[in-house]
């Protein structure tokens, strides 16, 4: 059963998406801002994520502890996250309590305090978050691959930011960042759950429409120049496990090639959300003992980003041997069109993953807003139809076009003292 979605733009430019679902007495509310790591310049990396943390430090009306308690008391679940392209804040609440979440979000869009003391204590919290990440070899490798793949485009740094910047960013810089990006015309609110659309929309207008529109922030436009030849590097660290990551250039989410590449990904690395033990890479690398684990991963983004294949090397193989086996598998998909059956199978898998997602009100509200951040909600609703149009020739063409060694970056994490 398809639930209708109401889409409205408020007078101040804020986008609102509403979907009634009456299966459980719950409402999930997601507020999205078009700001993320891609909006940061050198010297201010990590500022979007830090700003997100500061929005939990309270306003005059909802001081930190009260805010926190109020949501938790009502049994709500809430959190926030910052990604490359966007920042979101969500609350899933018992349906009769959602008003609190809406009042809170309307308030902290404009009235967050950014107290000097809170900024100072959050600085060490975020540095601690980064140090926790640095403990993981895969974080170290992923960060190194990313900064090698992007020199010009701001996708070059991790969302958490560089430690040097986390030590230097000031309270005023944070506040300025907040004021610039947290304006209603730079935001989208997505709500799904047990409500009636008309009164809900009226309430949202009451709370959010009085917030004055600001200057729409310009986003950084610095396309990455074409890569001329493969880049390989290695880093060293503790442990006895070798990780390999290969990153290929991947188009943005609204590019027509995004969909054939989704099918390609489903066949090569396996469908996201399912086990991947019959994917081509698993059969070629794990079954044949080149790797202990392998995964393929792409995410929908505003600008061209990366498709990453990440492997744990099998101890009995050399790094080059593993990369050669991976290349051979990709080459098969470049040389020979895949069978129609394989594509139909990938589409059935995608359908199942969609059905599971729709069991859950929180995830339905998430997708409405998330898709708005890099495309539009229509991108999500037409996703399966777009997959269904893909032919074996499409898959072969994108395999050839996007998976050439000349435009990839390969990073290797080597245990200290070992030989590649």
């Amino acid at each position, binding site marked *: 059963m398809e639930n209708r979605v109401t889409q409205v733009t408020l007078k101040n430019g804020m986008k609102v998406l509403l979907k009634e679902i009456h299966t459980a007495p719950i409402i999930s509310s997601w507020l999205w801002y078009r700001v993320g790591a891609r909006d940061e310049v050198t010297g201010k990396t990590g500022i979007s994520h830090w700003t997100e943390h500061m929005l939990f430090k309270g306003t005059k009306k909802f001081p930190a502890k009260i805010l926190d308690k109020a949501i938790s008391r009502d*049994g709500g679940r809430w959190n926030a996250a910052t990604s490359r392209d966007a920042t979101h804040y969500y609350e899933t609440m018992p349906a009769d309590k959602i008003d609190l979440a809406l009042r809170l979000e309307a308030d902290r869009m404009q009235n967050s305090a950014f107290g000097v003391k809170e900024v100072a204590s959050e600085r060490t919290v975020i540095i*601690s978050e980064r140090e926790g990440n*640095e403990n993981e070899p895969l974080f170290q490798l992923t960060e190194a691959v990313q900064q090698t793949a992007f020199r010009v485009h701001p996708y070059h740094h991790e969302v958490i930011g560089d430690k040097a910047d986390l030590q230097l960013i000031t309270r005023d810089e944070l506040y300025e960042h907040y004021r610039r990006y947290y304006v209603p015309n730079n935001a989208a609110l997505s709500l799904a759950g047990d409500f009636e659309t008309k009164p809900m929309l009226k309430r949202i207008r009451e709370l959010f429409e009085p917030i004055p529109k600001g200057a729409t922030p310009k986003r950084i436009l610095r396309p990455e120049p074409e890569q001329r030849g493969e880049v390989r590097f290695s880093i060293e660290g503790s442990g006895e496990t070798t990780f390999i990551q290969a990153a290929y250039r991947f188009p943005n989410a609204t590019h027509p090639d995004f969909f054939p590449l989704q099918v390609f990904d489903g066949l090569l690395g396996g469908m996201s959300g399912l086990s991947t033990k*019959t994917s081509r890479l698993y059969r070629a690398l794990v079954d044949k003992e080149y790797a202990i684990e392998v995964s393929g991963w792409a995410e929908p983004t505003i600008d061209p980003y990366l498709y990453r294949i990440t492997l744990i090397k099998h101890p009995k193989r050399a790094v080059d041997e593993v990369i050669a086996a991976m290349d051979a598998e990709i080459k098969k998909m470049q040389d020979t069109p895949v069978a129609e059956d394989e594509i139909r199978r990938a589409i059935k898998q995608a359908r199942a993953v969609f059905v599971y997602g729709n069991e859950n009100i929180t995830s339905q509200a998430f997708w409405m807003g998330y898709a708005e951040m890099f495309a539009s909600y229509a991108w999500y609703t037409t996703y399966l139809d777009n997959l269904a149009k893909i032919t074996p020739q499409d898959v072969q063409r994108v395999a050839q076009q996007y998976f050439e060694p000349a435009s990839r970056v390969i990073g290797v994490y080597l245990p200290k003292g070992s030989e590649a």
Partner: protein
Amino acid sequence: MEKLKQSLPGPEDIFRATLSNGIVVLARANFNSPSISMGGYLPAGSIFESDEKLGLADFVSSSLMRGTQTRTFDAIYNELESVGASLGIDSNVHNVNFGGRALVEDFPLLLTLLSESLRTPTFPKKEIETLRMHMLTGLALREQDTADMAALAFDRMLFKGHPYSRPGDGFVETIMSITRKDMKEFHHRCFGPKGMVISVVGAIEPQKAADAIEHILGGWQSAGQTLPPLLPKTKPVRKTVRHHHSLPGKSQSDLVIGMLGPSRKDPEYFPASLGNSILGQFGMMGRIGDVVREKSGLAYYASSNLSAGTGPGSWEVSAGVNPRNLDRAIDLIEKELRRFVKNGVTKDELADSQANYVGRLPLSLESNSGVAGAILNMERYHLGLDYYQRYESMVYAVTRADVLEAARKYIDPERLVISTAGP
């Protein structure tokens, strides 16, 4: 509120039946989405394994889907993945646990694959060796993980001489020593329908789900199945013990501070659980989060957790901090524990956590898998099918005095287990 109550699973809409061979089936219909979620367990956990063969239960449960009398590893996953279904089997101290989901038309397939995996695994040689290498790699990664290593030493000290002191994934030497014969013998001795529970939630009439399970698993008999051994008693440590596991080169240290806690069936469970919420869960990780993260900025995460299951539980505070702040963080946590057992909790704090416990119920039961898990717990801990109908009054029956009594029973700030790992 009425709608909320109606949405909670209860005796009117949870179907429960015992099959001819003893398997307990629990089912609840939800036709909002054309899918089903399945979960369950049987008593074949690591409690059956010897110290020399630690990791055997884990090895066996990981091998079940690697080849059966009917299908190869690749064929099993091909069936599953082709229809977008999933099935996973793992183990803990007491049980082998399984869980899966599928579009409802593929439910029989899911059941068939579960049945074959549990009943007729063949432990193919090549697959076992592949898996052994995966497990050894997992152990190498564990060896480098500050949180894992701190937790490992914590369990070893807290549960000294008890099966809970042992890591389910074993050690390099024990994994190396496990043979195919060991695995077949373990399977013969521990697997069977006795004590098995299976729950199904989704777009199927409960009776139909039970019929399907009877059809596919009802014929399972296992003469060799033995009952699990009884758990020995645990003893709290006599004075505070502290251990540091050195991991050079790490940016962050992890710490675990704790003591024994109630089991899920103990009368102190609810007071301890609400107390723990106040100590290190509620809002932004409770009092612990407030002093360690919010006030001192020492950690990104700092919280407390009550781990209460079949046997004795543990009550632990954990955090990740910069190595030079380790002692300061431990100090702050010890102070909070002292304050907690001295003064207990305030009226407002208790009221907040009680409201949270009741209010969050519909959220935790939002998905089919959430409901399937909740129904399994009703069975596992004998909570009764009307558990969620009684839940609100049980939560509100807890007083400040109950919380203080439970806190004092379990927490002695002079007798803590402190485990840290980092540079």
